[in-house]
């Protein structure tokens, strides 16, 4: 064909060119595309896992932070409760102590009062006795004539009660 001649087409050269391109394609495929695809996939996977890890780490960190906060809050609450309780207890024990002391003081005072009363009564009794003796003596001395003991005492007692 004339057009084939004009373009210088020779089927042997065409086949050679075809084979040439086939070889080129094969080698490019084997040595360029395959390793490139592999490396792209590998890198993509690596980046994905890296990102995953990062996301998970962040989540974990957040969780830990929250937990920490919670724990802190709980600890604070507990501490506050303890403080309150301790305060209450201290207050109560103080109140009790005061009451007890008051009671003790009251008791002491009562006892002292009782003691004083008893003492007073004793003193009064002894005074009475002494006065009676004294009067008896005096009267004895005044009245030399001695009466019978019983009568005498009766008389004296009467006199004293009249004095009173």
């Amino acid at each position, binding site marked *: 064909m004339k057009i084939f001649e004009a373009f210088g087409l020779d089927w042997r050269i065409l086949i050679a060119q075809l084979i040439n391109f086939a070889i080129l*394609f094969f080698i490019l495929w084997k040595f360029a595309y395959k390793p490139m695809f592999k490396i792209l996939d590998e890198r993509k996977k690596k980046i994905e896992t890296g990102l995953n890890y990062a996301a998970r780490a962040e989540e974990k960190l957040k969780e830990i932070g929250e937990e920490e906060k919670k724990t802190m809050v709980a600890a604070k609450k507990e501490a506050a409760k303890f403080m309150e309780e301790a305060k209450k207890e201290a207050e109560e024990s103080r109140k009790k102590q005061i009451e007890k002391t008051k009671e003790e003081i009251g008791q002491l005072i009562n006892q002292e009062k009782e003691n004083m009363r008893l003492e007073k009564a004793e003193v009064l009794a002894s005074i009475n006795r002494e006065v009676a003796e004294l009067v008896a003596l005096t009267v004895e001395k005044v009245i030399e004539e001695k009466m019978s003991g019983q009568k005498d005492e009766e008389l004296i007692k009467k006199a004293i009660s009249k004095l009173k």
Partner: protein
Amino acid sequence: MKLDISLSPEAVFHLGSLPITNSFLLMIFVTLFLIVGAIWLSRNVKLAPKGFQNAVELIFEGALDFVDTIMNDKDKTRKVFPFVFSLFIYILVANLVNFIPGQAALTINEGGKFVPVLRGVMADYGMVLVLTIISFVTVQVVGIMSFGPFGHLGKFINFSNPMNFFVGILELVGEFAKILSLSFRLFGNIFAGEVLLSVFLFLFPFILPLPFMVLELGTALIQAFVFSVLTLVFIKMAGEKAEGH
């Protein structure tokens, strides 16, 4: 001095009866360059890239993302990408190699005619045709794999009603027109660029060709891109149900 422009690549020497053309020679160099580059790369790829690998990965990933925007399917992208990107990088390197200066000076006297030893790979219609046919066959294979041989054929030959039949015939013609449009677009652009530059170099070799060289650099990139992306789009279209016709 005479400006000699040849539409067809010329034989530099013969291997037995097989003529080794100047574009074929350059094609060998380009292929070797890419193969060496690929092997060197595979020896040196690391998970943590640096230097050259970084640049390669940037281009690679950018291209992969771009293909994915068209395919909209990660698995399909992985399958199609090696082929499309091979086309792209091969055409691109083949086009860019033309700009290494000094090639035009390498000539050989073949029967009283000065034949350049090297010629743009894509300025050889045979090479472009081979690439186009590879692309075309790939598209058909994708179509057959997606819809089965009869399903795929049914897109073009459809007797369900006259309208569909006519559309099918149009599609069939369009399918083969793709070969022509794809191949002549690439070949035409690159060959025209070479002719333009050689004409300017012939007329006035200083400064004047520079802006056109810049334009041709753009063409080299754009044509490599267009060829591979069109192939990609055809593959994508072949894998989808024809709708809205």
